[in-house]
């Protein structure tokens, strides 16, 4: 019996999540555990001149940079971010030391007795100090601007976005004489492991990293946990006791990574017959105090410079600017949400300024199978966007609504009624790591082990953080081997037990890791022996037809792309400028859903996160300090703020993905902001150039725009 793999099953962790029996990091209480609390810098920029530590009672200690036996930086890509401040302070709240001990009240009182003296320097908050610059061209690059009949130029701005995962950041370091184990609410066990080896100056046998059940991450638990993991293990080594370091929500919101704010300037060269002949785009990202993953985020943003369209001549540049603010980092979409917002608005603004119908203009440039990508690679896999657009317009009654809203605007005094508008975004998302990342840096390895009881163990470092990989991987293997799902075992990864299949990021888990697992399952099928243990292994190999040049940024940036359409309908209150969602429709091509309900879950959650990035979520820095650092002041949507979301999936199987699956996790967030921004623009008849489109901004547009 062959069932369609997309047919939904219950998520395997439903019971423990719903009944509250799942053990999150703060639920774990090892015996003899000490608590740790972070003392932070109280200036945005400067240096420490002196420190005064109180006498510590028995069993309590200060852990700072002097306790580090390896190197004092958090190993990610660059060696710029210290584990503990030695002298230089680069952002307000930068961690200086931990106070550790058994009783929390004593820790708090000891912290109050510490005094740190600073010399302050002039902080930088503007986009002036570029630490990473990248550029690429397509076709004739900016030379086409010489032939332009006219140039249309706009600058788009996007703000911070905070992850607001279910549980704040947290780790527990466990101590044994010749080994340190780290449990954490994390996405990438091997990132953490590598960082720990670096800070301890030890070899890989001396460190073990295990994921605790993780209630949400959204990229926030990609690179950030390495920082607190390093701090906790240094403390654990010093105290020879387990150390628990868990952030409070406010601490988490104020001092952990967020989505990069961006300024994106796009110039379009327009020919006499209204053709878009080329784009010149500059992306500026605010990296905060340290580079971290910002260069990679920048690259994804730059590669998305033409969104779902094909434009023949491009000159794309980008910079990561360092500022004296909290470091920004990975967040679902990883640079693409900023760029797709800018591109989608730009296409509309070009149409408006050329007096053309936006849908017609966009359709003319919509990418088609075989087209040359922004980085001069090719869209090799079939693109079914035309079909998807047609379907999305059907289910939302898009064209009729555009006409109806326009008619109402013309024939009524809109000040008496509400402003109504509808917006549609088209987008794509490159699946897996950008460029040669998978082949050169990650080199994923997966294993399947069949034990004597014929149970099959999935041995990968992929983490379930709510996205359902515990369910979908088990389902995948059960289908492949035609065995009951109960016979497939997939535990939270532990680096002593699983190989490095890479981080759980970049919408790569099902397509890349799942793809390798599917191949491993085929191998296992051949080697299956009912009596014996069998272990099989697969390693990532770049498909031969995929070529990429890291220097010139030319070639196929991704092996495959997922595609999407979002349509959002809104009403804008003419008195208060509050925006109310009226309807949300989506069509996605994720290749093949391994579980339909899991993808629909991603679709609802991702899109709502994208829409609220576009209309609700305000986070600002004032004098280097985050102003909205509680869930009261940082506004994410409630059930009352959303509406029923209608989602359709269109199968478009990718040959190298398991059962045809491509990436899905990030895709669903990317189109939300432009769709809602376009809906608001459509309703109020003004140019929207920044997100979030909050009532304060709409009022400003109505007055001046």
């Amino acid at each position, binding site marked *: 019996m062959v069932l369609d793999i997309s047919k939904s099953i219950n998520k395997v962790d439903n019971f423990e999540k719903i009944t509250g029996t799942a053990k999150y990091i*703060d639920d774990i209480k090892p015996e003899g555990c000490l608590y740790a*609390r972070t003392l932070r810098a109280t200036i945005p920029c400067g240096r420490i001149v002196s420190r005064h530590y109180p006498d510590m009672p028995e069993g309590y200690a200060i852990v700072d940079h002097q306790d580090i036996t390896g190197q004092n930086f958090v190993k990610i890509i660059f060696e710029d971010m210290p584990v503990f401040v030695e002298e230089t302070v680069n952002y307000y709240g930068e961690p200086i030391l931990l106070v550790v001990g058994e009783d*929390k*009240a004593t820790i*708090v009182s000891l912290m109050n007795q510490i005094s740190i003296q600073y010399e302050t320097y002039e902080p930088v908050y503007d986009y002036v100090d570029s630490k990473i610059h990248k550029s690429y061209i397509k076709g004739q690059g900016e030379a086409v601007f010489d032939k332009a009949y006219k140039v249309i130029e706009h600058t788009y701005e996007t703000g911070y976005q905070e992850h607001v995962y279910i549980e704040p950041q947290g780790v527990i370091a466990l101590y044994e004489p010749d080994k340190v184990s780290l449990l954490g609410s994390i996405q990438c066990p091997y990132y953490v492991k590598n960082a720990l080896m670096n800070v301890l100056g030890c070899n890989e046998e001396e460190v073990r990293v295990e994921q605790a059940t993780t209630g949400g991450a959204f990229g926030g638990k990609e690179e950030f946990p390495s920082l607190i993991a390093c701090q906790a293990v240094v403390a654990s080594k010093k105290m020879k006791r387990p150390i628990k370091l*868990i952030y*409070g929500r406010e601490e988490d919101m104020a001092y952990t990574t967020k989505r990069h704010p961006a300024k994106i300037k796009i110039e379009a060269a327009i020919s006499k017959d209204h053709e878009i002949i080329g784009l010149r785009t500059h992306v500026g990202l605010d990296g905060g105090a340290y580079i971290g993953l910002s260069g990679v985020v920048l690259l994804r943003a730059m590669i998305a410079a033409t969104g779902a369209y094909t434009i023949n001549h491009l000159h794309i540049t980008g910079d990561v600017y360092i500022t004296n603010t909290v470091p920004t980092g990975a967040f679902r979409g990883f640079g693409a949400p900023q760029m797709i917002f800018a591109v989608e608005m730009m296409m509309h603004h070009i149409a408006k300024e050329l007096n053309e119908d936006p849908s017609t203009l966009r359709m003319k440039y919509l990418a088609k199978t075989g087209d040359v990508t922004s980085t001069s690679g090719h869209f090799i896999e079939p693109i079914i966007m035309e079909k998807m657009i047609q379907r999305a317009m059907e289910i939302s009654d898009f064209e009729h609504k555009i006409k109806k809203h326009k008619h109402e605007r013309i024939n009524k005094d809109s000040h008496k009624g509400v402003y109504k508008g509808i917006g549609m975004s088209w987008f794509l998302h490159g699946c897996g790591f950008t460029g040669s990342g998978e082949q050169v840096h990650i080199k994923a390895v997966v294993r399947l082990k069949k034990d004597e009881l014929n149970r099959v163990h999935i041995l990968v470092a992929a983490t379930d953080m709510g996205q359902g990989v515990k369910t979908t991987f088990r389902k995948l293997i059960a289908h492949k081997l035609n065995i009951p799902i109960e016979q497939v075992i997939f535990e939270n990864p532990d680096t002593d037990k699983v190989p490095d299949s890479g981080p759980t990021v970049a919408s790569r888990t099902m397509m890349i890791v799942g793809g390798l697992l599917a191949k491993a399952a085929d191998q296992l099928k051949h080697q299956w022996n009912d009596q014996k243990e069998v272990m099989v292994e697969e390693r990532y190999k770049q498909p031969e037809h995929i070529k990429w040049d890291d220097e010139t940024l030319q070639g196929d940036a991704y092996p495959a792309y997922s595609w999407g359409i979002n349509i959002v309908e809104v009403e804008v209150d003419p*008195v*208060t*400028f*509050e925006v*109310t969602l009226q309807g949300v429709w989506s069509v996605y091509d994720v290749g093949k859903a391994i579980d339909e309900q899991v993808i629909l879950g991603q679709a609802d959650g991702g899109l709502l996160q994208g829409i609220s990035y576009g209309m*609700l979520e*305000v986070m*600002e820095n004032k004098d280097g300090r985050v*102003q*909205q650092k509680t869930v*009261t*002041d940082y*506004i*994410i*949507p*409630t*059930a*009352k*703020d959303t509406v029923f979301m209608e989602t359709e999936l269109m199968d478009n199987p990718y040959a190298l993905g398991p059962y045809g699956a491509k990436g899905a996790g990030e895709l669903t967030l990317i189109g939300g902001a432009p769709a809602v921004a376009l809906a608001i623009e459509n309703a109020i008849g003004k140019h929207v150039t920044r997100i979030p489109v909050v*009532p*304060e901004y709409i*009022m400003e547009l109505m007055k001046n725009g």
Partner: protein
Amino acid sequence: MVNTYYPTSYEEALELLNTHKPTIIAGGTDLMVRKRAWSDLPTGFDQDVLFVGQLEELNYIDRQGTNIHIGAGVTLEDIMDHFHTPTLLSDAIKIMASPAIRHRATLAGNVVNASPAGDTLPVLYVLDSVVVLESLDGIRHVPIDSFIKGPGKTIINHNEMIKEIILSGHKFNHSVYRKVGGRKADAISKLSVCMIMDIKKGIIQNFRAAFGAVGPTVVRDLAIESKLIGKSLAWLDENVEEIGKYYESIIKPIDDQRSSATYRKACTINLLTDFIKHIKHHA
């Protein structure tokens, strides 16, 4: 070290209050957040704590003549659904906080918290509410606008507690409550307005307007209100913008992490003029 007291009668509560001058908790939805501490540590109360939410003597809603008396212990959820509760107050509670908070929080708590953004306050100002305070020394009746002195500041004495709040049960021809928050539930107001108007034979009999989160306390101006009383609908029609201007000079919001002064002010005036235009339309 702080002590906590859990009296079983109102009388006992008043005595404990007199002796220990404690912090009073009914629902605790503001205080527990304000006194939050690192997880596992006790909350950061620096004074003794007196619990009053359990006192049945304070759990009542009565109508006496045209006035509604709401006991200090009634939760917002119970007030919201009660048949004596004025519509304006129900409207305010319906969009306040979240169901969980509404099941704990009290009206008295919202009053004594004295936040400029307190969601029920503009309604209480418009309904000429009186705060009834009691201590072993006796009972005082204090109009809401004299009770609240500034953000978090009231005239309550250390040995006093709120017994009840009395509000007008009068029904108005036209009334509106609007709250503008960052989202549709569980939000602290960027601004809120409560306005009423009674019209008889084309003449304004009564007009009241109160504005929240646009000053240190809720803004209500009797002098401006009296300018409208006795005027005709035709006058109202011609003077919409003028009335907006009356209020512009007394609405002085601030910029903060939730909104801007410019938006708060413009939006408040917009809601006022919209209310008046709406009346013309339906009168």
